[in-house]
């Protein structure tokens, strides 16, 4: 047998992630009553789940040293960053600036996540989506959303 050697980085980080969730859960519910098996308190199930999750995390971690696995996949920061940023911006702008502005901003920012986007195309797409969203969702379906920024309407 060969010595102990890390064989699957992917499995090890996955195990750490599961363990992290388990520990976070245990910490958050430390004050909740457990109760008995017959009358379970609010803390019974979550605590049980956390411990099982930790147990599985341990098995995954051990496996990482036993079974050969793939190396960690590369993270692509550009699509990840711009896509998440665009959704975050939608959340920040929808209430204050209204649907039209939010759609324009989100489209442009998320388009920056792709290396293949073209400027003119993105601009026309953003406008088309804003018109479509305003007409279909607000005018036709009547979803209760502001179309324009608060300060303009008032």
């Amino acid at each position, binding site marked *: 047998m060969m010595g102990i050697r890390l064989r699957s980085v992917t499995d090890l980080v996955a195990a750490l992630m599961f363990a992290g969730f388990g520990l976070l859960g245990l910490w958050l519910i430390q004050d909740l009553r457990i109760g008995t098996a017959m009358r379970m308190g609010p803390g019974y*199930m979550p605590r049980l789940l956390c411990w099982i999750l930790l147990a599985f995390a341990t*098995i995954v971690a051990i496996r990482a040293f036993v079974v050969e696995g793939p190396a960690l996949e590369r993270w692509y920061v550009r699509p990840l960053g711009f896509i998440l940023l665009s959704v975050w911006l939608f959340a920040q702008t929808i209430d204050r600036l209204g649907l039209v502005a939010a759609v324009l901003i989100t489209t442009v920012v998320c388009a920056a996540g792709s290396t293949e986007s073209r400027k003119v195309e993105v601009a026309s797409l953003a406008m088309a989506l804003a018109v479509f969203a305003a007409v279909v969702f607000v005018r036709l379906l009547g979803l209760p959303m502001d179309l324009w920024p608060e300060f303009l309407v008032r």
Partner: protein
Amino acid sequence: MDVFDNLMLGFGVALTPGNLMYCLIGALIGTLIGVLPGIGPVATVAMLLPITFYLPPVSALIMLAGIYYGAQYGGSTTAILVNLPGESSSVVTCLDGYQMARQGRAGAALAVAALGSVFAGTVATLLLAMFAPPMAEVALLFGPAEYFALMVLGLVAAVVLAQGSLVKALSMIFLGLLLGSVGTDVNTGAQRLTFGIPELADGIGFVPLAMGLFAVAEIIKNLESPEKRAVLTAKITGLWPTRDDFRRAWPAVLRGTSLGSLLGILPGGGALLASFAAYTVEKRIAKDPSRFGKGAVEGVAAPESANNAGAQTSFIPLLTLGIPSNAVMALMAGAMTIHGIQPGPQVMTSRPDMFWGMISSMFIGNVMLVIINLPLIRIWVTLLKVPYRILYPAILVFCCIGVYSLNNSMFEVLMLVGFGFLGYTFLKFGCEPAPLLLAFILGPLMEENLRRAMLLSRGDPMVFVSRPISATLLAVAVLLLVIVLLPMVRRRREEAFKE
């Protein structure tokens, strides 16, 4: 005769102009997202869920159902013409469908896929109509112990079907159950795992979770590599399969239909599993397995029939037991709840118009889909030429609007950011998100039934093995787990997923 009367009642509902229109809209949207790679029924139904609030419940369900089975039709088009699965359940159709297209037989492949689908869809809907009422009666005998055991079986089935490491799939199940327990405890009103955030008191929203894990993470993943999409358009000449194609295809369609119907009922099953299993079976029983992967018509006929049959019969657990067997069914359950209808065995008796109307609409929808998919195929091919760089901002914007419009809450959109990140992390760490989502849905139901069962049995866990139905269900679950853990089967399973 009873079924016939009921279906008449159903057609009375489904054939009203309004419902016919929603059925058509559902079928069209379903085909659209089926054709377009990168967006699936989970994200679409989640996006449209808030809109259904403004429709009558029957129309809403007819439309959402149409999206799910319509996607199974559309998925084959992309698989055959582009060698990309338009829908995950069409992955195996690529193998032989694309080869047929390269040999100039794209038309025949598309026709076989569509005709097989409509046959399978109709048969499976008939099965749904025939077996749902007796199943619902059985369901009335179910106590909390049985419900709990059934859900355990569903989760085990989901683990078995997940790709990659079993232990990781099991971990994802428990993480999903944990996420499902966030929110106010039903019995005591205590806040659990909420970080003190008031918006989390009702629990984590299912829609931001599903969209984050499936739509947002998927978009990021797709943007990693430049797009390669070569559509074989010039080669759709004749749509009619040859006599030899028919001779080979029809037994495969029959086998695919039966297998798909069966696997669709299974909790954790549905269209995806059905198509994989059907392809494997065809290859196994073929006289000359080497033809597969080189344009064998059975390799298109069987999985495409199976995924349609599976899509239809996966409604059975939801409509009879109130247990969603996959993510789309969970969203359907959500749509019912929005309208104040508790999914379960009582729906059939309390809302027969809705129940039978939806089932009847499936017959109509399947016929519509053949027309949408065969004569109009060129329209969908044109759509396939829309590049992903234009498609994905649209998908993302609709996701944002969909999530926001649920409660007009920016908090839910922020959750979308978080779950998008989490979903990408899962992809990078080799953890499949489907079992987590199913566990998240079943979690609260499981806890409720577990607590009730334990209360009724005065804390004696033997209640789960002393009641015959529950004992059987749990035994099947254990058996499934043991079988998969056997080294021999394990290797096989890994091979099967690699193909």
